[in-house]
């Protein structure tokens, strides 16, 4: 049987989880509405970007994140409207419903690569808009769903601004733990698929199994983000789950850096904050996103996280100047 090497978490995984743990304290640290609002939206954006990040680990650029967000969001909200308000039930439901839908969907779309995958996932998001529009009795159609009961935790209602934010932070923490666990456990597999899928397969890797696993988990995390968004807005609405959101989410992940779990988190933090300050000029935010995207593609392919890591290496370089001499005996031993 396959002996798995221990899937150890690196510093980045621990840092990501520690960050969200720290954010759990924010609802109690400040009453400032703006800070709470921005942190809440950063958390949602980061969750959605983590979903994109998982797919990018396998070199797949997914535009389907809003579709899965909608599935999770509507599923959770429909549950609350039918009397199930316990977060210990609806949060798992917001993960499982999109994950279960992703499973058969993956069988269809994961055969595709590159621009074809992009196009098909884009179409999925468009189809979902259509489905929402055509099912007004279930989903409220173009009006969306509003006025649903607040979620509860073991009987306590989570309706005030503080609990809404705390729930968002807890879900983001869960999403980060799941993402870190998945990408660390299958680091070598995902990297092999990203770098050379054909070779990996011909060496015996069951590529579709890992892709399906990634797709399903990415869908689940997007679903939790969808519920978190609905919980913040107190409404699930088709305009929250369109192609524009797909672009925004991808931009968070790529500008933040696709190579590290910290990338999507940094990207969402920066861009959500910046676009809020540019709130009065939405077009500038879009322009800035575009500009940053060009910059990242041309100059810093690793995004913010990659650039910071490179800078860190540069700063450490002088200290390591004596390195080669020290390393030489070791290399000699290795060669013996």
């Amino acid at each position, binding site marked *: 049987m396959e002996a*798995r*090497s221990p899937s150890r978490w690196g510093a980045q995984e621990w840092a990501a989880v520690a960050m969200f743990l720290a954010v759990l304290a924010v609802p109690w640290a400040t009453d400032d509405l703006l800070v709470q609002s921005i942190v809440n939206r950063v958390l949602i954006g980061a969750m959605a970007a983590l979903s994109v990040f998982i797919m990018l680990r396998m070199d797949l650029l997914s535009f389907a994140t809003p579709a899965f967000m909608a599935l999770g969001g509507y599923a959770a909200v429909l549950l609350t409207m039918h009397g199930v308000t316990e977060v210990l039930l609806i949060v798992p439901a917001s993960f499982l419903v999109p994950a279960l839908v992703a499973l058969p969907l993956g069988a269809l779309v994961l055969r595709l690569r590159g621009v074809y995958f992009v196009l098909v996932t884009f179409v999925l998001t468009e189809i979902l808009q259509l489905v929402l529009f055509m099912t007004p009795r279930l989903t409220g159609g173009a009006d969306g769903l509003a006025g649903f009961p607040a979620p509860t935790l073991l009987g306590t209602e989570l309706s005030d601004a503080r609990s809404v934010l705390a729930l968002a932070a807890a879900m983001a923490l869960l999403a980060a733990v799941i993402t870190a666990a998945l990408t660390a456990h299958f680091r*070598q*597999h995902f990297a092999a698929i990203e770098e*050379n899928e*054909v070779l990996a397969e*011909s*060496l015996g890797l069951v590529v579709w199994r890992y892709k399906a696993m990634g797709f399903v988990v990415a869908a689940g995390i997007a679903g939790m983000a969808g519920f978190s968004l609905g919980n913040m807005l107190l409404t699930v609405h088709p305009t929250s789950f369109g192609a524009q959101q797909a672009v925004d989410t991808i931009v968070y992940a790529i500008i933040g850096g696709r190579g590290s779990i910290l990338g999507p988190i940094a990207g969402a933090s920066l861009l959500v904050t910046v676009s809020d300050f540019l709130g009065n000029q939405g077009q500038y935010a879009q322009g800035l996103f575009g500009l940053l995207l060009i910059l990242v593609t041309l100059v810093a392919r690793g995004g913010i996280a990659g650039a910071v890591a490179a800078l860190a290496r540069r700063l450490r370089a002088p200290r390591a100047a004596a390195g080669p001499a020290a390393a030489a005996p070791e290399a000699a031993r290795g060669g013996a």
Partner: protein
Amino acid sequence: MEPAAGAVAGVEELRVENLAKRFGGLRVLEGISFALAPGDLLGVIGPNGAGKTTLINVITGRTPPSGGRILLGGQDITGRPTHAVSRLGVVRSFQQTNTFKAASVRENVSRALRFSGGAGPQGWARVAPLLDAFGLAPRLGEQSDKLPYGLQKMLGLTLAYAANPKVLLLDEPAAGLERSERTRVDEFVRHVRACGCSVLIVEHDMDLVRRLCPRIIVLDAGVVLAEGPPAEVLARQDVIAAYVGADAAGDEAA
């Protein structure tokens, strides 16, 4: 270069029966049949576009055949997915350098071992002689796409061998190598045969083919034009006309 004992158990015969592949109306392979017994070494030559790489693609499940069967030890493996064929022991190498580019040499090998189900010390022990022979052992920490081209190519071959093959299909292993580096391919082939692998080599380098292969097949426009020992086959007028042409005639003279 002593092979690790018992590394490859139960080597089986690969049998290709009446294999055909058409892309739309285009006939790429037609009526291809041959057998590869344990320890056999078969050369496949032919002009560009003769269907050599397609033959490897079809056997390894990259593309399904339009007709015919592929049997491994009597078991029908036709149309199985690539990873399943690989796990059964039919592994290929690629014409272009094929490594996991951003990964180190060590990670490359460990991935090959892990993906084929052979992670652990025994796997490394099996691959170690090849790493030593190619001079890859001191460079385990280097990123694979920063290696010189010849070494990348050797790493690609090593990865295929690391996947614990019973049958190895090598797609132009010498292409792009310096003349001085080509003897490494000989070394590789000798090593894997000593372990009991059977090997199929698609190759353009006629010297290498003559040196290594007791038996060759000539493909032309998707059909087998000739089969037999190289000296005999390469002397045939139709083979020279179809494929070898002026170049090989020159080779012959030299």
